[in-house]
């Protein structure tokens, strides 16, 4: 495997559908990190991931995975990539043991011991049909398969959605363990931002097919803030400082992207820390500017 600094490099990725366009998507996931890919339902997360994995044909743009061209070196790269989807792609007629017999010959680095270790750790029965598994068990099985062939990149599309908090936490811990190896990287798409706040190093926020924010999570969180204004104070805030403003009977909450500068500029106003959820919500309403 050649040397690379970014596990994923996407440049100018474009895909046009009837009624939706993924436009000029550009971001990268540094090697050894976990990137949260956030956005509303229908924002373009799944489309980006499908293009990234070459499941769908792109109209334009370049994708490099683990330092190699995602299309030209597709089958070679895919030995080192694992994908986890929100729906389990395994036949319900199979069981975990049979699944191993399917994947062992496919992946050269398949690790039987690791696979059985994960089955044991996740308390997954080996002989029970997948059709009889709960949603959480199915997702754990998919993750067990994904982690058992020494993949260097995990791409997960809403993998934790629909799972209860206990299972989600368990899975997030596994991801953190996986990242102990600095050659491993994760792209985790989700609209559950609390999970990403816990584990992500960087965040990319997509909305209506466009990347609105991409960078280190801590930088994004520290640069954004919610200004708690009265209606009078709100009138004094410059339009260029406002991402969007939420109007209520008690006042106006304003999202700003330059917390430091705004704190100096509007010294009398209270600033609240912004969560990823807040940032996502205020950015989604950026076109309207004001919302209730």
């Amino acid at each position, binding site marked *: 495997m050649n040397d690379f600094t970014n596990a994923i490099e996407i440049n100018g990725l474009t895909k046009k559908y009837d009624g939706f366009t993924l436009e000029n998507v550009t971001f990268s996931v540094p090697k050894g990190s976990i990137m949260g890919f956030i956005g509303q339902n229908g924002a373009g997360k799944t489309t980006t991931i*499908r293009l990234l*994995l*070459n*499941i*769908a*044909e792109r109209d334009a743009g370049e994708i490099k995975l683990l330092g190699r061209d995602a299309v030209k070196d597709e*089958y*070679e790269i*895919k*030995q080192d*990539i*694992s*994908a986890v*989807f929100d*729906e*389990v*792609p*395994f*036949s*319900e*007629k*199979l069981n975990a043991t*049979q699944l191993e*017999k*399917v*994947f*062992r*010959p*496919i*992946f050269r680095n398949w690790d039987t011991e690791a696979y059985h270790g994960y089955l044991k750790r996740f308390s997954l029965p080996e002989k029970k049909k997948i059709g009889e598994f709960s949603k959480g068990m199915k997702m754990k099985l998919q993750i067990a398969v994904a982690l058992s062939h020494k993949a260097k990149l995990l*791409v997960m599309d809403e993998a934790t959605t629909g799972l209860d908090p206990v299972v989600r936490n368990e899975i997030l811990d596994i991801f953190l363990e996986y990242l102990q190896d600095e050659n491993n990287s994760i792209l985790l798409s989700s609209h559950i931002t609390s999970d990403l706040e816990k584990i992500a190093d960087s965040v990319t926020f997509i909305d209506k097919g466009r990347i609105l924010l991409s960078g280190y999570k801590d930088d994004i969180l520290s640069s954004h803030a919610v200004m708690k204004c009265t209606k009078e104070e709100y009138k004094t805030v410059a339009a260029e400082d406002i991402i969007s403003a939420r109007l209520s009977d008690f006042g106006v909450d304003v999202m700003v992207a330059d917390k430091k500068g705004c704190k100096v500029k509007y010294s009398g106003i209270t600033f609240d820390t912004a969560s990823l959820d807040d940032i996502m919500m205020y950015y989604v309403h950026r076109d309207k500017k004001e919302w209730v």
Partner: protein
Amino acid sequence: MKGLIYRILAITKKQLIYGAVLIGAFIILGMLFGASYRFGNLKIIMLILDPDYSAEDIQKSIEGIANAMVFMVLIGIIMVMGQGLTTVTEDYKTKWKSYAHTLPVTPRQTAAATYILLIIEYAVSFVIFLLSAVTINGFFGLSLTMKNIGNYSMTMLGALTVVLILYNIALRFDGEQKAIHILLCCVYAVIMVIMVAVAVLKGKIPEHIRQPIVDMLTEAFKMFRKTMFLFPAYSAAVIALCFHRSVKLIERREK
């Protein structure tokens, strides 16, 4: 590829077992009929039903019964051979196709896994079928002629090519149910065309137009009979074309 072959086998295992039981039942039924004719009362029943039956009539009827029994086994085997198709529907249901694009498996390997499995199934089925045909005929006191074996081989080879064409239609339309419906529509259309053609030929067509058509069809049928020995070559060509098409269909990405 080994993993992919195992996957199809594991998914279709239950249907294969049910199919084997069904075939076994047909073979036993055939043997029982044969034993009843040779050692029991089937011949007596036939004579009771029609006392005017001559020895030749009985022989003909028995050959008919034996053929029907063998044909039932053949149909069972063809049905079992088509079980590989059910994975297409299963894959559509579980979205395996998208997932397969994330695996280090080329479309050629995916298609080859299905074709190798179908051809192995075909070879095994053919051996089982021949053995059962010999056994059933033996129970009737009949022997299997080379002509019979040739006909059976061609039927099975033809069935294999139909299964592979169906596999391609299933891949194209993401499910074997749709493929079967499309095939049935095609079969109905062909039957309708033949029926209309027959009706036209038998109808009020002037003799000077009708006769050349009949002669042409007769000649074509004769030529077809003469080139029957090339049937395996035709089938091989169809299988190769089907394989090429399957690779293309598996290679397709979402637009």
